[in-house]
């Protein structure tokens, strides 16, 4: 689009100093590099919180099993519960040292986002993969990638010829 075609849109520009400058005066900037000692403390904090999170994650993954059949039968509330629990796991598990569980949860969320009608076998395989990874089985990166590829094939087979909702 050239200038002649550009529509006139009223615009106001607001320019305020940075938060750092407002707090500590002109030209102040916070250091971009994180002090390694502070980083260590932050990692320690995550390790400390991991104990509590791990217990919660086991309960969450266990609870997913109970939502599978109702979700496959079309129960919207069960589907919401399944999705929101899996969504929380995909957001948190990686931070707390369970990246593989997070990857399987991400795959399950994507399945629920993309298909209106969902199959219990697909959901069960996802949850079982999460459960196994939580137990330390199949948590290896290569094995996890293989499992994810298998889950993709299972989804394709289960929904052969069906268009995804997404």
């Amino acid at each position, binding site marked *: 689009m050239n200038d002649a075609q550009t529509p006139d*849109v*009223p*615009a*106001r*520009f*607001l*320019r*305020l*100093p*940075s*938060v*750092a*400058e407002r*707090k*500590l005066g002109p030209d*102040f*900037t*916070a*250091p*971009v590099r*994180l*002090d390694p000692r*502070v*980083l260590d*403390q*932050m*990692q320690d*904090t*995550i390790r400390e*919180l991991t104990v*509590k*999170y791990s217990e*919660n994650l086991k309960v969450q993954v266990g609870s997913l099993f109970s939502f599978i059949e109702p979700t496959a039968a079309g129960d919207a509330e069960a589907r919401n519960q399944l999705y929101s629990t899996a*969504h*929380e796991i*995909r*957001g*948190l*598990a*990686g*931070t707390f040292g369970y*990246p593989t569980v*997070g990857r399987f949860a*991400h795959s399950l*969320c994507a399945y629920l986002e993309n298909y209106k009608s969902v199959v219990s076998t697909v959901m069960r395989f996802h949850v079982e993969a999460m459960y196994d990874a939580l137990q330390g089985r199949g948590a290896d990166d290569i094995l996890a990638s293989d499992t994810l590829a298998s889950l993709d094939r299972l989804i394709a087979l289960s929904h052969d010829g069906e268009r995804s909702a997404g």
Partner: protein
Amino acid sequence: MARSLFEMLTILVVDDSLHMRRLIARLLDVLGVGQVIVASDGEEAWAKFLEHRPDVVITDAAMKPTDGFVLAQRLRAIGEDELRAVPIIMVSAHSELSAVERARDSGVTDFICKPVSPRLLYERLVGALNRPRKLIETPGFVGPDRRADALAIDGPERRQVTFI
């Protein structure tokens, strides 16, 4: 020096997950942030924002009843310039382009895909603190001015151009 800046900060953390709220709040504590306020959805966050007037908002995207996108739009619509220009960092497990675009269109300053790492959180926070708060307001959009010339790069790392 950085520690004294963090001590002066009030940061609002919004997430419907108790674990995520606790995690981010604790990491901010370690950084020395003076006051960390938490809220579990956009509605509670809105009330706490008006009460505490935080320097930065770190918010999840998907929450009920009011999500992070609506919260960002409400914050950008506040009448007072100082409040409206608050840096908003969205932290979300939704890594799809559509979610990032929606965040941008809602006036979000920066976007972090979960899982969160301490280093990433620090880098985005410092970026939000150091960057001049430049907003552009049009009838359909209020949010950070993202034009190239708005991203002032100064200091020794600025690339020097030599004409020969």
